[in-house]
């Protein structure tokens, strides 16, 4: 998924990241100040500003959902990836990799819908769907990242008398970290999007004003929610791009 190696000079990306995150924070805190603008643009809409909930609360709820689900996905996903690359679990590796690949062809919105009969409406089903879906890229990239560690490097480490734990912590994980983080990046970005759709099953997210606007034919609501969630996703992606670069050691095992 990584295009970072091809992107422009890092300094301009940093400026972009700072500028967009400032814009995001300003909009989250001060969207109400733009009320005159929305009233001028949409004179026919009576409440031209979403007021059932503050945008700060919506953003925090959205972030909480993504953060909790991503923490679970990452810990379970990395653990699963580690298990299937150790001698004890190697037998499960082909199946787990295939499962992660097939699972990602399932549309996130469909996964969200299928969880509802099992888990009901609201925060919980959205969380379950986000965790399930977010797991897959993490598992896939953990396996791929650990697979890029050269066999000679492992041989050399063993020859130096390192234990299996030491090899894992000091050699394998640091070398695989960039690819693992790329997987976490994909997982988090997808989760930000799926959490938005989560408002259709009753979770409070930045998608709530969008859905309210679509249902009530109120375009300003739609724009307010969509701009915030779009910015949130882009800022998160740029931040992950910088994080990935921090872990690149020249060797770049690309995981698609």
């Amino acid at each position, binding site marked *: 998924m990584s295009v970072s190696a091809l992107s422009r000079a890092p300094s301009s990306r940093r400026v972009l990241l700072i500028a967009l995150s400032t814009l995001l924070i300003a909009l989250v805190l001060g969207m109400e100040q733009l009320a005159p603008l929305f009233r001028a643009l949409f004179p026919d809409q009576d409440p031209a500003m979403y007021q059932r909930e503050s945008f700060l609360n919506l953003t925090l709820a959205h972030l909480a959902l993504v953060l909790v689900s991503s923490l679970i996905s990452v810990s379970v996903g990395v653990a699963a990836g580690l298990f299937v690359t150790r001698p004890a679990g190697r037998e499960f590796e082909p*199946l787990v990799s295939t499962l992660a690949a097939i699972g990602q062809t399932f549309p996130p919105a469909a996964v969200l819908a299928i969880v509802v*009969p099992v888990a009901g409406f609201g925060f919980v089903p959205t969380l379950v769907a986000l965790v399930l879906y977010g797991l897959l890229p993490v598992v896939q990239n953990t396996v791929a990242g650990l697979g890029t560690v050269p066999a000679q490097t492992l041989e050399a480490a063993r020859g130096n008398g390192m234990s299996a734990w030491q090899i894992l912590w000091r050699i394998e994980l640091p070398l695989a970290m960039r690819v693992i983080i790329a997987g976490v990046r994909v997982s988090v970005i997808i989760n930000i999007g799926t959490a938005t759709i989560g408002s259709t099953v009753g979770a409070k997210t930045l998608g709530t004003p969008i859905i309210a606007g679509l249902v009530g034919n109120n375009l300003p609501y739609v724009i307010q929610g969509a701009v915030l969630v779009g910015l949130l996703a882009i800022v998160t*992606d740029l931040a992950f791009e910088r994080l990935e670069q921090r872990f690149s050691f020249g060797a770049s095992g690309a995981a698609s």
Partner: protein
Amino acid sequence: MSVSHVPTSDAASPRLVANRVLVTLLCAGLLAAWLLPFATMSPNRLASGQTVGLGEALSAWQLSAFLALWAVLAIAALRRPLPRGLAHGVVLLASLGLLLITLYSLGDYAQRTLVERSPSARVSQGSAFWVMVFCCALAAIDAFQRASSGWLLRLGYMLIAGGSVAMLFASGHFDELSIMREYTNIRDKFADQFITHLVLVGSALGPALLIGIPLGLLAHRHVRLQGTLFSVLNFFQTIPSIALFALLIAPLSALGNAFPLLGEWGVKGIGAVPAIIALVMYALLPVVRNTYAGLKGVPPATVEAARGMGMTARQVLWRVEIPLALPVMLSGLRIVTVQAIGLTVVAALIGAGGLGAFIFQGLGQYAIDLVLLGAIPTIVLAVIADFTLQMLVVLSKPASTRR
């Protein structure tokens, strides 16, 4: 790097179990059958249902067939007596058998209930049913990987399995299930929305390829363009689908209002046009990236040789570069198709129709069957598209490198 065979080197410590994956799946399946409901039964459409276990739902012969197949699978997982090659074949057949028994029993239970209870009773599939179907599929996939079988065998197995399930459906065996009765109610609408879904996906893929492939060529020829191009396309891909759909509403409705002629062509805030534009924007990155990667993978020596033979630039492109880049370009098409099938679900929120319409309508009315009627076909469609295009990718490779 994939471990396709069970390591036999540790023969010094003979193990009883040769296939621990299968044992895990069998335990999970049995545990689910024992603890979770196989089906739910409610007196009518709106009443909440009571759960029905496997033992209660299956008739005597079905239960014995189920246990017999389970036992066959358990034996196949052991190191002895079956030789490995034979064991994989047995697993493939037995897991297909188990899948069909599970499906058949559910339909049969629904039919019996309607006769014994009341015609208005509703029978739905329970969680144990899903776990068992899932375990059967995983056991078959695992067996294929262990046997490191070729694509022809996989294709044949998929066709047989899909064909048997389709025949069960076509014979009307499932007609008494709650979800199928819901389907009968909306049969015409379902066909319409299904076609709308496909049309939306198709009309997004066309422009995406028409724009994306030349852009990929451009990125390959002009290195300086790459950074900006990929950054912009990555931006599109990052924006959550619902936000991108929604953000297109305002400019398009303004455009439709300003130019009534455009409005007559369907350029307005909601509906198919913003959906298709958003789908194209999402599809561009994989198409451009894979076109670029495919062309970049063509060995420079090959291009040199073609030029040396006196081919023109156009001939080199069409006869050498594109054929060699085709597998990578087709895997881009695969990503894009699967992605577009999924994103079209969300397009239903802006009035574009498609299978997502059932999902969101069902969520609004808490009609779970309706939700599943939207979600399951979408998933099946995505998996079929993925599998078909994967086959195409394999076939587009030179015969010597196929596997």
